[in-house]
Every structure is written in C-alpha cells, then in structure tokens.
C-alpha cells in the first residue's frame, strides 16, 4: 500500500503568554498563515483557529469519509452527510491540558437505508476511521447518528 504524507509548517514568535504563531498547510497550500495564540486557544477564539479546532476538522473529515465508505460497501451510498465534531480540551489533575473528548454527530440522507442500518454504518465508520482509533487511546469518542 502507498504511504501518504501530509506536512504543515508553523512559525512561532515570543513567549507563550504574549507570543503568537502562524500555521501553513505545506502539502496542499489549502490554508496559509493562520494565526493562533495561547489566549485564543484557551479562551474566546476571537476569529483565530487552534490545534483543537484543527483536530475537530480532521476528526470530522476522517469520520465522514469512513461513513461514506461503510454506506457504499453496504450498497446504499449516501446522497448527503452532515457531520459535526466537537473536541474538548480540559485540565486533568496532575497531567496538565489534555484532549479528553470528541463528540461526533452525523445526519444523513441515504436512499434505501433505514435508521438501524445508518446507526450500524456509523458504528462501523467509528471503528474504521484511523483518527478515532488514535483518540480512543487517551480520550473518549462518542458518535450519534440519525437520518435527516
């Protein structure tokens, strides 16, 4: 199997409390120079992204592709999937900040698939999404799915 690599680059200036950084998607160029800082990571985002928001986009994107794959394997490719992902970071006693939870909600328009079949496909997608498997080692992952 081919090995696929994707790279991102960051420049950070200054200390953590007052400094700031900028992130660039080096492989695709799909985003460049996204600013971030400690206050906007922990508190109000004020229009700035954060590592956790990128993880939410990554997990949402990864799960959605796995769900499309599972539904297609089952003979009912999706017409339309809407998936949201919320990543929670919290301070864990003695361990500092940790990613503690990822909450996925999936809504689907899937001709020929009933609620039970959709729920089953979502469960299989969670099991086959490579990022779900990684997160589960240190956080909880919850998936809810229903037809829209």
């Amino acid at each position, binding site marked *: 199997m081919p090995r696929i690599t*994707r790279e991102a680059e960051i420049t950070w200036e200054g200390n953590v409390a007052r400094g700031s950084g900028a992130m660039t998607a080096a492989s695709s160029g*799909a985003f460049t120079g996204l600013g971030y800082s400690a206050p906007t990571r922990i508190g109000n985002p004020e229009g700035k992204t954060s590592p956790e928001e990128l993880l939410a986009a990554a997990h949402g994107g990864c799960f959605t592709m796995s769900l499309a794959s599972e539904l297609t394997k089952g003979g009912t490719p999706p017409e339309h999937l809407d998936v949201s992902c919320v990543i929670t970071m919290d301070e864990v006693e003695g361990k500092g900040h940790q990613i503690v939870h990822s909450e996925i909600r999936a809504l689907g328009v899937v001709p020929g698939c009933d609620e039970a079949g959709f729920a089953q496909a979502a469960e299989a997608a969670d099991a086959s999404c490579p990022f779900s498997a990684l997160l589960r080692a240190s956080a909880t992952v919850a998936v809810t799915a229903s037809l829209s």
Partner: protein
Amino acid sequence: MATDRTAAVTWKGSLMEGAGTIHEAGSGAFGPLDVSWASRAEDANGKTSPEELIAAAHAACFAMALSHGLAQAGTPAEQLDTSATVTFQPGVGITRVALTVRGSVPGLDEAGFVAQAAGAKDGCPVSKALAAVPEITLDAALA
C-alpha cells in the same frame, strides 16, 4: 476549565466518487475547505486532508509547548519554526509523525534546546492525544 472547538463537514456521494466540504471553522479562521478521497490518498491538488489538519494541529501545539518550556527555563525563544509530517497508510492507519524544529533562543546551547524540545514533544496535549501513533520522531536544532 474545559475548552470546546467545533468543526462541521458535508459529504455528497460515495467515498471514491463523492466529495466533501469542511465548513467555515467555528472560529471563522478558515474554510470552507474541499476534501476528497483522491486528494487525501493521492496528490493533494490544493486540497487539505484530515492528515494535513492533524499535522497543523500537532506542529502548532508543539511550538506553543516548547515556547512555554523555554520561557519557564529563563531562556525565552525569539523564534521557533516547526513542522509536522503525518504519514497515512490506507487500511493500516496513521503510522508516523515526524516533528522538526529550528529555534532562535538567546542564551541557550544546542543540548539545552534539544532537551527542551524533547520535553515539549512528550508533554503537548496533541502529542498526548496521538500517543498511540507507532512512531513519533523529533529533529531539533538551533537555527
């Protein structure tokens, strides 16, 4: 206090022929971004992927943790340039993350910088979330 960050994705069609969109981020900082299986598993063709987003999250988290460690040690960084390369093997999973950093840190020698970078690699929240990745490497040096 817990911090939540949200993203939303729409997908249309099967995995191989369909395509998706990562909506504008909750913060408003990026998006909408197109995604597809072909651009995830073959040439990126200008499209991001879950693995590229993980790379950005990890390199960003690592840079922030390192800047914190250096400041705590009394040698704050002037500038840190970090990168993360995430390797994805379809059917197997995410098999490797390679972190690099070059730093301008007045008053700190190479060995001290490498030790701080190793601490940030182990301690940053995204590293902890990715702890199940089989291989996470670090290449750290002063600029």
